[in-house]
């Protein structure tokens, strides 16, 4: 079981810890990730806002590259925005022959083509359905016992394409986190929008959404995320939002593979905990208390 890996721009910059921890976890699980050569930006939310064809073309180029590398291996995408953009091309191409034709013309410029592209899979999808919680449970050597985690899914890995989870009441992370020994805290905000794409241009609107999420997460030790936009949004503005809300809303925010990596026995450096912007002392204390246990 190997995957063609599409990291996307964020994972090579502001979300490097997501990239590093993902690779580390898969390595620990004995699965090879092969990065697409010369992959390009998926267009994020910006491309569609400029030209929808441009958005599709950017995604299509990556699919074509992946197909040329290995048509039988799924494309694993950790970033939700990238995932959706690539998925959208995968789906829309199939339904809209006109679009498919145009994409062929554009890709033709670089002598690329899409025939039967590999499936686009989100990291969470692969973890839940391919790796499975059972495997994690077996491989967990450092159970995160007593760590209270709220799983945050964001939007674009869930919607509009309901591929691997309920698009409004997702639960796929629950099993994975429990397999890691963590306690999953029930909350309402797992699938609510954090407003990341507005944070640069309409921060006053976006902050309201983040505030709601942070408010509901109170009581948990950490938020687990699967999207670099969400992660940055939830960890980067905690001080300002706490100030607005008049109450301390700071909370540790970690990428899901970081938590899984820790449970699998990786050390803090291997999952790049040093890059996280929000790690609370309470969380770090608990982390130190987790013992490596030898699996029976």
């Amino acid at each position, binding site marked *: 079981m190997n995957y063609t890996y599409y990291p996307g721009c964020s994972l090579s910059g502001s979300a490097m810890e997501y990239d590093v921890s993902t690779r580390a976890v898969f390595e620990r699980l004995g699965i090879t990730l092969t990065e697409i050569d010369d992959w390009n930006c998926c267009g994020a939310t910006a491309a569609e806002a400029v030209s929808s064809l441009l958005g599709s073309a950017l995604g299509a180029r990556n699919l074509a590259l992946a197909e040329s590398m290995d048509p039988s291996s799924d494309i694993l995408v950790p970033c939700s925005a990238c995932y959706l953009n690539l998925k959208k091309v995968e789906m829309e191409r199939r339904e809209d022959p006109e679009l498919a034709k145009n994409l062929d013309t554009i890709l033709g410029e670089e002598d690329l083509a899409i025939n039967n592209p590999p499936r686009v899979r989100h990291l969470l999808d692969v973890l839940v359905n391919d790796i499975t919680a059972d495997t994690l449970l077996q491989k967990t050597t450092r159970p995160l016992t007593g760590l209270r985690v709220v799983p945050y899914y964001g939007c674009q890995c869930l919607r509009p394409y*309901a591929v691997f989870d*309920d*698009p*409004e009441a997702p639960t796929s992370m629950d099993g994975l986190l429990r397999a890691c020994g963590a306690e999953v805290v029930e909350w*309402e905000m797992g699938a609510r929008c954090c407003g990341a794409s507005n944070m640069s241009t309409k921060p006053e609107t976006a902050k309201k959404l983040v505030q709601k999420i942070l408010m509901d997460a109170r009581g948990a030790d950490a938020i687990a995320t699967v999207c670099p936009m969400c992660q940055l949004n939830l960890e980067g503005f905690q001080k300002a939002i706490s100030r607005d809300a008049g109450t301390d809303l700071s909370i540790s925010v970690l990428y899901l593979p970081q938590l899984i990596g820790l449970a699998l026995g990786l050390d803090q450096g291997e999952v790049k905990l040093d890059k996280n912007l929000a790690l609370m002392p309470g969380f770090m204390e608990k982390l130190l208390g987790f013992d490596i246990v030898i699996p029976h």
Partner: protein
Amino acid sequence: MGEKQGRALVVGAGISGIRSALDLAETGCDVTLIDAAPHMGGVLSKLEYQFPSDGCGMCRLLPMADRDTCLQACLRKGLVHGGIDLMLSTTLKGLEGEAGKYRAILETEPSIIDPKLCTGCNRCSEVCPVTIPDPFNQGLSTTKAVHLPVPHAIPNIYTIDMDHCTLCGECETVCPFGAIYLPGEDRLELKIPRTLVEMDVGAVVLACGIDYYDPLSGVNTFGYKALKDVVSNIELERILSGTGPFNGSLKRPSDGQVPSRMAWIQCVGSRDLEFPACSSVCCMIALKEAVLVRKRSRQTIETVIYYMDMRCFSKEFEAYRRRAENEYGVILKRARPHSVRYDRNTGGLSLYITDDSGIRVDEMFDMVVLSLGQRPGKSVKELAEITGIGLNPLGFFEDPLSGEGDKTGVFAAGSASGLKDIGESVIHSSSASAMALKVIHGARSPHDEEREPLNGFRDVSTQVPDIGVILCQCANGPDIEPQVKSMGASDVHVSGVMAMDRICTREGWDGMLETLAEKTFNRILVLACTPQLFLDKKAAISKAVNLDPAYIDFADLGKGEPLAATVKMGLARIRYADRLNSRASAMVPTVLVVGGGLGGMTAALSVADTGFEAIIVEKESRLGGNLVWLEKDITGNDFGRLLDNTCRRVEKHPGIRVFTNAVVEDSRGGPGNYTTSLKTCDNDSKIIDHGAVILATGGREAETSAYGYGTSDAVMTHREVEQALKAGTMDPVNLNVVVMIQCVDSRNDSREYCSRICCKSSLKHALEMKRLNPELDVYVLYREMMSYGFSETYFKEAREKGVIFIRYSQELQPEVLSGTDGVMVKVHEPILDRTLEIRSDLVVLATGILPSVIKPLAALFDARVDDYSFFKAADSKWRPVDAVNGGVFACGLALGPRDAKESVASARAAAMGALRLISSKSAGVSLVTAGIKPSLCTLCERCIDSCVYGARTLDSDAGKIRIDPVACQGCGSCAAVCTNSASFLNNYLDQQMFEIIDAAI
């Protein structure tokens, strides 16, 4: 009349199946009525309250003529009719042959409990160790694995849920009648195996009903089954029911608390992507439920209905909605909630909605009811394959406008061809049975045996009562013989008490007949359990002892009442049993049809096709009515061709006489026997004798002076548009903007009802104009789009084609200002909350439907009109086309607004009603019929006022009250109001009742 017809098969024993089966049985067919369930009644067995009366009225389906052929009891319990064989747990597995000569293969589920032996004693259930969710209460309460499928059904046969049964064998051991055969070790060996029956039938009626949308099959955003206080509307009906999980008190399932706020969410599984049709009945169901809740709670529970369009499109529905809002305080909110969330803080349920102002609000409720949409019945697809009947794209039986030309002898009835309310289902079922009857009649062979004539019994009416008592003894029951014998001995009228071993068995029964044949009793009382089922057995006893069934009665030992009271009451009743010595005159085998439009012609054809005579009276010089100017309907049916075909068939039919330029002048008589004079064109009078009358006087597009109609050529009505398009005088290519205004002069204080076809007309014309000129801008200004049923798809199509729909309210009506360059329409757009000005070339007004004047005509036949001057039906649900007296019927627009297809169905139903009456034998008067003692009568005429059936008249020449025994339904109102005791109800006489009461206390 009363000729024996062939056999018909009716599939499905819900109300539609019951209606069809009774129609066919009453017109002389043998009927086999099957249902896949172990009980009859379909979905209605679970529903106790129906709008607009908020009560039940199912028994109104029962025969009105020849009443004694049918058990006159609550139909929700069961149907027992001499001409109907009921087969439960039975499905149609194959059908071969052709119309009139089918061979049907019926499969009956193997039964673990032998229905012939089970007496419903409940001992099995008492010992059963397995508790399961009660399917009758939608799982809201529990029952045992061996249970009654419907607690109030007769017969009360238990069933075993084999999915849960542990085969412990307790029930088998305890059953006193040996009725239970649990399967053996290998579980496959069943003592009573699956049975296949082959049967020759002339026609098949498919009344297999519908299913409901299952929210669990979709994304279930409303949390159905996940949140306990989110219930479906059927579950709520069960909660409100006296046999429901809380014995009829309204509680929420989660904690048994009385809710304080309840929400209904409409269109769950309807009008969506998966099912782009409207389920037609949910709006009224929700209104009814909310009204029930308001009534029950003395208006303390707040009820809110979230809806998209409140589709109260049938005649009385709008008035019901007004009552619900104004009298009962039901709150209606136009909004579409997307999901129901559980609020952890309050334990309540929260709904996010956007109201009209665009503000998002979060509303809290403690109970949410989902108005689940319709889906085709489980068996529809299989039945379509077996019978060859077509399916529409949504998987319902096809329902063509004209079934006349079809060769097939298979007809869909009721909601199997799309969800209908009870009234529409009843109409549609009678329409199906009318077509089936035609097939059977056409295929009838002359060798069929004639039905045996009644009478020829020995005359015992003047003899002193000489009562024979038969006591049915159960081997396992207590020995009551000595007690009954001693009671018999002390009653001077009893000359013998005979105990028999279980007459429910073949041997017991034969033994009883043998014994009785040797005796000469003139009254017979049989003491047994569930005597309701012995209706046909009464006839058998009657034959064996040559005694009018009037002198044979049963008393129920199984009700748990004191034995002495039961026996004495039975004796008191039988002692006074009698048959009124009056005879109804023979039915006149002719039906008068007033009005020669589509409805009138269809009704006449349906009558004449079954061998009776029909006479059409039309006041115009030609037949056709509104069809003359209509071109086609929204589905594309060609009305010109329909008119030609129908007229041709009417003119050629030997059984139909047509009088054009003629009107009804006067009429005398009553159901079965009318004498009517017609005035024909040359001022001649023509006298006609007929047994029933069908009023098909039609209706017309309402005139208007609203919105500048009449002052500008650019303002037209739909009729004018239809004619202009048909004649080619209007070309939409020359138009740029068209505005259509709905509900003109309608659904307001002066004309309350919805005309129900105008929205379809507007959609039809909007789509037609867009087809001819895609550039055309069409605006439809509406209050509620009444695109019920499958016509919802055209609403969707019109939107997709770019027709803009703007909602306006009664308070803020559009304005039309005529100018030199076209017309300006001003309308407030509620979503944008601003007034739009639309400069248009054409404004089309939907002015609604008015009935032709029928009040004087109806009065001639002792029928009435409703508040809107349409024909007043005896009961809008259960007797939707008949007048109370049972001899007058109406169809088409005379009955209320309806489209051509619905008119045709109502016409066939009206014909079926007339046929039920005039094909009745009426040789004997029903046992429970009113009489009069002239010597006591002071002619106060109160009985006449109190008789809703119009069975009583004053014969002023003779100074006597006359009773029509056919029209009389034995309700007893006349006897109740008569202080003189001059009016009496046979078999409910004063002395008889006194003695029965005496015996009871």
